[in-house]
């Protein structure tokens, strides 16, 4: 179980296997550290991430969700990253409607060699979610 005291957010990061997942590997290979509470879930393309997956993550107790895909115009599956971006926007509004801060879901784009960018995103998002506090779904509010 988690230690009491400082709030350690649970963040789910859907990572495209073509780019962001490899960027996370690059970060590790370069020994660039980032918060260990980021849970990387490998997906074949950011376009595989469904609105349902993101919502289910919140239902299961995530405090924040990241969708990480390829840079625009560099998606192996042409439109996967654009589709993911639109879905993230859709989830933003859905969350707002049910009273959860839409900022808890974010989309970023990376290239496989951008290990330090991966770590920077992880750090920044972790700080932002910490400020927002635990997800209202989790606390049952």
């Amino acid at each position, binding site marked *: *179980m*988690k230690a009491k005291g400082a709030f350690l957010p*649970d963040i*789910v990061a859907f990572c495209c*296997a*073509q780019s962001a*997942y*490899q960027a*996370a*590997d690059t*970060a*590790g*290979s370069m*020994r*660039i*550290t*980032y918060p*260990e509470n980021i*849970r*990387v*879930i*490998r*997906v*074949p*393309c950011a*376009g*595989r*991430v*469904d609105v*349902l*997956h993101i919502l*289910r*993550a919140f239902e*299961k*107790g*995530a405090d924040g969700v990241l969708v990480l895909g*390829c840079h625009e*115009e*560099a*998606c*192996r*599956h*042409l*439109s*996967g990253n654009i*589709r993911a971006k639109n*879905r993230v926007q859709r989830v933003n509004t859905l969350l707002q409607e049910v009273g959860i801060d839409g900022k808890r879901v974010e989309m970023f784009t990376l*290239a*496989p*060699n951008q290990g330090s960018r991966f770590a920077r995103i992880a750090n920044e998002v972790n700080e932002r979610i910490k400020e927002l506090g635990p997800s209202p779904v*989790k606390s049952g509010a």
Partner: protein
Amino acid sequence: MDNGLKLGVFLCDCGGTLSKVTDFSAIKAKLQKLSDVTYVGISHDLCLKRAQQAMQKDIKDKGINRVVVAACSPELHENDFMNVVQSAGVNRHLLSMANIREQCFWAHPDKGKAAKKAMTQIGMAINRARFLEPVEQTQISVNKDVLVIGGGITGIQAAIELSNLNLKTTLVEKEATLGGKLNRFANLYPVQVSPEEVLATKLKQVAESQNIYVLTSAELIDVSGEVGNFSARIKRGNGEFVRNFGAIIFATGYTTQFSSQIYGLELSNNIITQSQLEEMLKSSSEVKQIPKSVCFVTDISDEHSRVSPLSALRNALGIKEKFRGEVCVLCQNLKVDGAGLEKLYRDCRNKGVLFIKFDNSPRISKQDGKIKIEVEDVLMSGEQVTLPCDLLVVEETSVPPLDSKVLGSTLYMGLDAQGFYQENNVHLYPTASNREGIFFAGNCHADLDLMQALTDASNVALSAYQLLAQGKIAVEAEKVMVDPNKCRFCLTCIRACPHHAIQEAKVNHEKMVAQIADLACQGCGICAVVCPAKAIKPKDWSDEQILAEFELLGEYV
């Protein structure tokens, strides 16, 4: 509860390095308590043959039917482990990996936190393993012939390389002769061979080859089918015919156009484009009025391309050698980022070509038929310079030929912002298109100089060879599957598929459903998300598998 699952977890401490930061036996002890886990093994080097043989034996002996490997990134050895699983008699897709090296022990220096994260990661992989599904492998025989579209130097080189690899190649060129841009260039600097010589050598190779079939004045109209068995409709003269190919290579090149709007100038007898100058240099003996002073302007309409500054340098040197007049090149940032370009720039300087750098576009005016250029020279702290000249040569932007653009969209290929072909992934698959079995070579997809285009052509030839040489392709049958009972044939997936891999099909001779072509499918799973009926299931990335990974949220094992 007996669900028939027998999970085997194989831990690897990466040659003992990970054991130094965490206690693997403690992880093992924890894992053994989890339900369905029948075996937990620790290895020091799962990437090596010896350990893999032991792993294979363990899978067989313990009757394991789901394998979890906790080791380095799946990007490195996933395929090897899949082979091990397969050789142990278990379907190769019944493997799930936890990345405890790159994404855990290497990234997190705090030993306690890293150990906790590793446990969570392995737990996630175990959860995922419960929902894995087998995917059967079959082999499909393919046509070994290759179609090359575009008879420029890139297409010619690709055809030669393919014929050397013993693949029969058809080279289709829309013009009456092969050679493309090489027929128009006056020189090929920084390469010290004339375009005629290069072309003659290559054409001789084409003529001598038994494997190359050249079709000039011909055009590709349409392509149906998928990788390994494309049928291409080709138009030649008034006739049309269909041929079958295993792979298609596009080497349609680029064309140039002058934008008079950006310059605020119209072309005239003393304002000409680079390609008009090429013509002039090519027939230099027939030029009556030799220009005494020539000015080149680059970087105004097309600062991003390599074609524009390269042709300015080539032609500046060409003019110096043929007409010996004064030559001045106006540029913003002359990019010499290719092999030999720095030398070409120095050669120009040594021959007396003057370079003037500007920040603000030069003002060009015409008085009594004479051209006057006013420019602020950046290197002279913005001092105003006035240059009269006999001949002004303006740059052209490189654009895709109109017919290649049309062809690209009829074949469902990705186009970039300018309409050039978009590679599958600029870093990982620089010559592959979004469709399996269709490749791009040369300037139709990238900004290349001659040497780079030739390398690109060889690259593509090897890719096609790798694909077709065996005469058959291994394919994973129904790795993404449409449930015909759920499919309402709304066409959403057919429109969304980036690889044109979904077609219509009939089940039981009555109901129309979407069907995924296993060879063309690249497994991105976009169709599964857009399907309103949730009728499509990617077996390696099913909803159940993805959702199973966050079962452990909020707690650590």
